[in-house]
């Protein structure tokens, strides 16, 4: 039992933090939002730091690191509310490494690690909500390969990614495929998202696809759990910075002749926010440390973590705006962007009520971290 970070992990954190502070100013971010919500150049910078290869084995030119390093990185990106979706790259690295045939690995992993290829998960369907096993997309075997027909929504940077990881049914069972955006039958329609980022509707009409695995539900659940752990860490980073911004504001802003940070009711609110932050941080650790556990244990833990994060992110985001007062609801001031990011993250990979259901369903007689 040990929650200290190694020196290597601390160096990794420093490197990412430095890039965020120096390379991803709020002004640059604002320009990226204006330009559509994604900047490939910024993504390439992340890849140059090695982050795109974090979950890719060294044999495939990655760093071969694990969930704790993923947590460290995502926390720092969260602090800067970085739009470029590294969480997707962690998912792609993890899922392809874990489930894809060797040929697919060899073809894609090195390119993902270098940043040359951006691969994202395209699983959301209109009727599915947060249920991973609800899937109308169909796959058909065509000679040695496969074709897919599907309509997937809210696919992160879907109109600029190079390939998609797509769940589709084969004989009633979920399988996972890789589809290139440039393939025949693929069309996309991109748009900005509420947090300033970018997503797209992706339509596949008999698009050629490579099979990743026929055990698609296991792989998809794993993919989403990687996403949850990363989102938890990112959420901690976003909240940590949100708290800092808010605390500074309370200690700067005067009303009725005194700093508003001297009002006890606001101080107690800050204490409640700090509580939510530290509970969330604790559960982010938990998510990272359970990400490689056996399936049932992993799913239970990740649901618990995302539930806590959902509660925390909503509270911290809303209260940060409230404590700022009027300036908190302006586009100009930074805190509203942190709030919007927190809001969007709550609805990513299952919202709070969804994960409450998961926790409730997966409950056991035993209690606690190790149960």
């Amino acid at each position, binding site marked *: 039992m040990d929650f200290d970070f190694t020196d290597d992990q601390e160096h990794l954190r420093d490197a990412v933090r430095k890039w965020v502070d120096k390379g991803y100013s709020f002004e640059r971010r604002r320009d990226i939002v204006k330009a559509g919500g994604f900047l490939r150049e910024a993504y390439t910078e992340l890849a140059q730091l090695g982050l795109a290869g974090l979950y890719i084995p060294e044999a495939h030119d990655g760093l071969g690191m694990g969930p704790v390093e993923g947590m460290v990185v995502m926390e720092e990106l969260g602090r800067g509310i970085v739009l470029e979706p590294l969480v997707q790259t962690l998912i792609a690295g993890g899922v392809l490494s874990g489930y894809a045939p060797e040929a697919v690995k060899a073809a894609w992993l090195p390119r993902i690690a270098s940043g040359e290829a951006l691969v994202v998960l395209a699983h959301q369907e209109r009727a599915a*909500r947060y249920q991973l096993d609800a899937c109308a997309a169909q796959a058909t075997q065509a000679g040695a390969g496969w074709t897919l027909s599907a309509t997937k929504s809210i696919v992160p940077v879907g109109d600029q990614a190079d390939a998609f990881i797509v769940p589709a049914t084969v004989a009633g069972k979920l399988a996972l495929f890789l589809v290139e955006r440039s393939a025949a039958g693929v069309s996309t329609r991109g748009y900005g998202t509420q947090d300033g980022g970018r997503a797209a509707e992706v339509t596949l009409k008999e698009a050629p696809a490579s099979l990743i695995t026929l055990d698609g539900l296991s792989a998809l659940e794993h993919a989403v759990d990687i996403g949850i752990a990363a989102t938890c860490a990112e959420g901690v980073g976003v909240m940590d910075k949100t708290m800092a911004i808010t605390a500074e504001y309370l200690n700067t802003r005067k009303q009725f002749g005194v700093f508003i940070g001297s009002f006890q009711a606001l101080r107690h609110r800050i204490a409640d926010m700090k509580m939510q932050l530290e509970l969330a941080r604790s559960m982010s650790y938990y998510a990272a440390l359970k990400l490689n556990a056996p399936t049932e244990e992993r799913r239970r833990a990740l649901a618990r973590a995302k539930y806590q994060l959902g509660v925390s992110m909503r509270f911290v985001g809303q209260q940060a705006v409230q404590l700022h007062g009027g300036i908190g609801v302006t586009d100009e001031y930074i805190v509203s962007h942190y709030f919007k990011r927190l809001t969007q993250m709550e609805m990513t990979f299952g919202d709070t009520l969804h994960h409450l259901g998961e926790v409730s369903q997966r409950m056991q007689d035993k209690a606690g971290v190790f149960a």
Partner: protein
Amino acid sequence: MDLAFTPEEQKFREDVRNWVHANLPPDISQKVHNALRLSRDDMQRWAKILGKKGWLGWGWPTQFGGPGWNAVQKHLFEEECALAGAPRVVPFGPVMVAPVIMAFGNAEQQKRFLPGIASGEVWWSQGYSEPGSGSDLASVKTRAERQGDKYIVNGQKTWTTLGQYGEWIFCLVRTSTEGKPQTGISFLLIDMKSPGVTVRPIVLLDGEAEVNEVWFDNVEVPAENLIGEENKGWTYAKHLLSHERTNIADVNRAKRELERLKRIAKAEGVYDDTRFRDEIAKLEVDVVALEMMVLRVLSAEKSGKNSLDVAGLLKIRGSEIQQRYSELMMLAAGPYSLPLIHEAMEAGWQGDQALGGLWPGGAAHCAPLASTYFNLRKTTIYGGSNEVQRNIVAQTVLG
């Protein structure tokens, strides 16, 4: 004690309902029912229709051309408008400045300003808040110096709702720095077309520009535009605030939006999910309890007995409910509330033709949900933040 409205009140409600249904343009109510973007024209069209009927100043006494309704009648009128999907009347003219002009303005001012307000011809804005003032409204810094028969106004107002459309603005200005901050404030009406007035929209977190900054740079204002006496403006402003009562709770809109929430939850397939449905059920109780509280206040106003001091509670609860229904609507749509498609917030948007209209998932009702949620974060901040309201409520209990 009786929950039912009297036959006369029911008849009144029916008359209002019939008139609203006959006169509210369907293109406008369609936007309101779906939280789509309302233009200046939409708002003013409805204001002028009301004005023509004599109902834009629905709270006005007959002596100034109003209908002279009692508290219950006003409430019924507001409820019927809200449920029918009428836009909220922009309150700065008929609800806010008009009562001040009636109570403290001179006959000349009443004759000059009230008709334009009653008809909906003139768009009024409010100039109270200043940068940094927040809930401390008495900290007015905008100066008005008397020079002969004019005031020279310099300073800045902010959070001026829909000020981009404003033609006139009523302002709290500082005419004296002596004594307590409250004593040196005057109440001034300013023509926004005057040289030196600059309006800059403030983009809010939902990407819309609902509020504005207004600068005054040596703006000349005729002294005849001063309401009442110099340095007594704070008294008038407080009088105005005491006029905001039950409408602060906005329970009629909450009822309409709760029904919309149920429609959205059904369309998104979560209405029969126990967990989600329970959240709606809790909100349902919240709305009923708020409505009962509003009705208690109305009854007390009508009879003059057992007056209730619950304005702070109405503000707190009403704003919390607004935030909650918008939150639940957004959560009902979940991921489908995440696309930010500005054009989808215009009426008549048909989806993305390139994708055969399938966008996102073909459900246009999803488009405004997150924006509305973001926008309504203001409700616990403005009009005296809920923290300030809690101070006030505590004062009524503890002294």
